[in-house]
């Protein structure tokens, strides 16, 4: 028994590469979507104005994004993260991630700002029907995503075909 404890002692001190967690992969995905999405010019006050990501109801993904964004730029702009509270408006955001804890808010949020060029990303089944633009799905241990292209178009967002190609499902415009 003591030999077993000693071995564990040695092992505990040495971190090993393990499989990432679901929220780590989703945060990475979210960041990697940004170069493939085009916002209309009026969404930004100035050429160097930051791209703002709001997160509602997803503390773990928020933490991951905080580790990712320092020192990185998207479309030549710095990226800024903002935690959204219940009831707070999405004004000034370019991306909004609605986490599972706030999944019932997807419809309310998308209704409050129906025309804002806002990339609404969620992670609950059926969120595309609630107005989200991108929704994460986990199947067979892998994180995938589906895109509502009609919703993106309605919000004047252009999504590169490169990103559409990797999506598990794309809801086409005029559906």
């Amino acid at each position: 028994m003591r030999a077993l404890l000693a071995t564990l002692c040695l092992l505990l001190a040495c971190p090993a590469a393990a499989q990432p967690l679901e929220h780590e992969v989703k945060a990475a995905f979210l960041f990697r979507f940004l170069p493939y999405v085009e916002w209309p010019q009026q969404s930004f006050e100035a050429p160097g104005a930051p791209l703002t990501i709001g997160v509602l109801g997803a503390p773990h993904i928020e933490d991951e994004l905080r580790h990712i964004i320092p020192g990185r730029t998207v479309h030549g702009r710095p990226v800024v993260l903002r935690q959204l509270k219940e009831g707070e408006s999405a004004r000034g955001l370019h991306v909004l991630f609605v986490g599972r804890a706030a999944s019932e808010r997807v419809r309310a949020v998308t209704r409050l700002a129906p025309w804002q060029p806002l990339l609404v990303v969620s992670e609950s089944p059926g969120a595309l029907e609630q107005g989200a633009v991108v929704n994460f799905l986990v199947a067979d241990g892998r994180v995938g995503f589906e895109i509502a292209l009609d919703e993106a178009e309605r919000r004047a967002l252009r999504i590169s075909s490169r990103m559409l190609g990797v999506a598990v499902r794309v809801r086409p415009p005029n559906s």
Partner: protein
Amino acid sequence: MRRTLCALAAAACAGAAHAATLAANLADLSLEQLSNIVVSTVSGREEPLSSAPASIYVITGNDIRRSGALSLPEALRLAPNLQVARVDANQWAISARGFNNVLANRLLILIDGRTVYTPLFAGTFWEAQDVLLEDVERIEVISGPGATLWGANAVNGVINVITKSAAATQGALVSLGAGDDQRDIAARYGGEAGGIHYRVYAKARDRDGLRLPGGASIADASRFAQGGFRADWQRSGDAFTLQADLHDGDIDAGRDFAAANVLGRWTRALGEGASLRTQAYFERTTRDHHRTFRETLDTYDLDLQHNLRRMGRHRLVWGFGLRYYRDRVQNFPEAGLAFLPAHRDLERHHLFVQDEIALTPTLDLTLGAKLESNSYTGTEFLPNVRLAWRATPTQFFWGALSRAVRAPSRIDREFFTPAVAGGPAFRSEVSDVLEIGYRAQPAPRLSLSVTGFLHEHERLASVLVPPVPATFTNQRDGRTSGVEAWASWRPRDWARFDAGIVRLHQALRIPPGTVDLAAGLFERDPRQWWKLRAAFDLGERTDLDVMVRHYGALPNNVPDYTALDLRLGWRAMRNVELSLLVQNLLDRGHVEWSPGAELERTAYIKLRIDL
């Protein structure tokens, strides 16, 4: 011990920096690369708090693989809220919240929506229930009366075994295992044709018999084989599933059994979160207890559930189910027992409605009512009320008040021996249950759950004298109370610890002036049990899991015991895994049940190949 603690502290400081590096590295991958990453299923514990107002523990497919479980009951050991006792090579006594016996009749067990229990005893013959464990998506273990959605006989809990969809089990899988007491072989092939995903599987097992503590052989060596298929397809908002299984087993001690079932399910998304699910299945089981009885049971079941879209504050679900049993028993007079009448057709139907009301954005009130009718006692009314409060994003409180019923089975009413007989007046056992629970995620890598419960029982099954001859009556009552608690901590990405404890207190009463002939027959429950599990990822290829459990003494002279199981898994190549499982590492032998086998230290090696 001190050195271990020092190492842990040092590792804790390194942890924060390590996490930051991992996140940044993932963000350098391309979309295609991110799509291919298999995420650790341990993450199931780290997600936002479940808001189910019930005491529920989910055993994931990955937990099952890492535990080395060789059968469904062994997989159920992982649930802290279940009391799992191995009786002999093939039989198990499994229950939640007390009243455990070999045919625990207060648990509802479902495999992919198919109820797995016999109306002969209103219990489950665990020796005949099996699934290809590699294809299990998860097992939901709910202790306490299942909510309205489940029915009578879900008095103490519900075990819901859910297999993966056919789309998630594509390709071939071969698994071979051999150990001191058991040898297994299993294979599965999954493919896709014309938009339909399917899989076929087959498995076979050969087990040695075990011995009683004195050394006497139980003569329960057994052989078992099972096979089946599943097909899923989708078309716009409709999803269809068809599955079938058949199995055949025999046990040297004089039991043979076989079964075949076919099940179809259709789910339709109705838009705006509404859905309709219809399911129908047929099962034929045969059981032959040599020179004691033979039974053929046909089950026909139709089930419908309609989830309505949210209307204002309300989310309604309603449904109904129709079930017919055709039970044909052949009695053997020399056995000294008989089911009379030998042939019996039974019905069990239900209708339920449930309303989940959002009183405030963080407070939900669920009102549910179920009407169940059965061939013995007519209609039973099962109401329940649940309150769910998400106090903060990481703290959740819930409470529930329910009425649960265990309807009579054939053995309660129609079973005759010279000494004891089923009673024609046997009624349903009733339990009124109060539960309070708390679930929290105090830190990102730590989650915990605590539930307190109080069950007030009435009309419990009893066999009392006087009068003579004794019959099954409903003259006991009493109370079960206790606490269930468990926690999961993942201090590192490669180390996880799970702990669970249950304390149980039963106080049952018989009327004055009677003697309980069945003392200890209907239930054998310890005062407490606890379970610990440590899971380590040692490098990219190796898994180590250490599982310890302790059960208190059982009332009929089964001493308390502690058992340690260990599994080491090694991914020799990307799709080849070799594993070694050692059970009862510390023991030379212990019993978990009486009368029951002595369980000794055993080793088992398994090879799994995914093609």
